[in-house]
């Protein structure tokens, strides 16, 4: 059970007591559905990671879908250009919440060696990133490690606090607390809601 931590004395009767946060997080973290945004060579490593040799299915995250509507983990794998940035942001916006982002490789983390007019200098200038993976490209093990790190991050979230707090109080990640401090441009974009989001229709 791991993070669920049932109260021991209640287990023998066929049920146990736990926190509902722990239950929700347990479900979320072990069934991440990645959206592979493979933009360059990192995409190849991403395929290797999903394949049988590295077998991401061990961590419940092998169900890659090519529709953002069915995904909750955006893996930005490769060099994001400014020409592509709008498409990447649209993909992120179309993903239902809760959603997480992994910046895979140095290009998507910082722009990498492309100190250029054409390349986004880190996808965190347009998307809120949860885990950065260094490497050019990173080995599949490194990305699996990033997913494990993301799982521990999801474990610490408080989804119930967000539901009880109501719309507009907690951030869009459902953590109930700000867990990251991106730059101004991102912080602004994080709080803007998609029109299909129920919280956008409150007024």
């Amino acid at each position: 059970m791991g993070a669920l931590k049932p109260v021991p004395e209640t287990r023998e009767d066929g049920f146990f007591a736990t926190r509902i946060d722990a239950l929700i997080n347990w479900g979320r973290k072990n069934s991440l559905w990645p959206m592979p945004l493979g933009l360059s060579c990192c995409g190849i490593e991403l395929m290797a990671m999903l394949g049988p040799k590295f077998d991401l299915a061990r961590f419940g995250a092998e169900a890659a879908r090519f529709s953002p509507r069915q995904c909750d983990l955006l893996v930005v794998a490769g060099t994001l250009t400014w020409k592509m940035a709008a498409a990447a942001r649209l993909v992120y916006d179309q993903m239902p919440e809760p959603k997480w982002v992994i910046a895979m490789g140095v290009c998507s983390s910082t722009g990498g060696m492309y100190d250029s007019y054409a390349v986004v200098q880190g996808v965190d200038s347009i998307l809120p990133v949860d885990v950065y993976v260094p490497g050019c490209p990173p080995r599949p093990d490194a990305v699996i490690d990033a997913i494990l790190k993301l799982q521990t991050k999801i474990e610490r979230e408080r989804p119930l606090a967000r539901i009880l707090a109501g719309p507009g109080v907690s951030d869009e990640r459902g953590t109930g607390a700000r867990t990251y401090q991106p730059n101004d441009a991102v912080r602004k974009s994080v709080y803007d809601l998609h029109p299909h989001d129920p919280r956008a229709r409150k007024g």
Partner: protein
Amino acid sequence: MPGTITSERVDGALAGIEHRWLVHRDGLPALELDLAGLAHALRALKERAGFESATFVTAVDRLPRVPRFELVHQLFSLAHNERVRLHTRLADGENAPSCTQLWPGAAYMERECYDMFGIRFEGHVGLKRLLMPEEFEHHPLRKDFPHQGIEPDRLYREWDKKRRAEWHPEAAR
């Protein structure tokens, strides 16, 4: 290079058009032309010297030099297995003749040339940007363009602002 079989054929084809042979380190026959004679020279090389293929059309920005641009055509003759390269100096704002009538495949290369250097080609039917977004304002391969760009995120920000205004008109100020 002067004195070879290629140069004799090229010289014969270019009779009456002012040109000057260059010695380049890579040993490829290269010649320099005036902009005024370029269109005639390209047609003559295709029709009389048998260069039926244009390998590339590109440009070099040699900024402190006047005129700043150097237009480069490299032609290839399949029949003779020979290449020749043409260099033409060009000032900023001057139009170059398009060679798409002779080699339709050069259209993309001229578009790229326009995109990266801002050299316009007369006679090109679809001269628009090839790589950069069409609303992009600069020509990135010019030497006076900073490699980190001038407001590289401008187009994205504009798109983002417009999109957010459509979603939440009351929030857009």
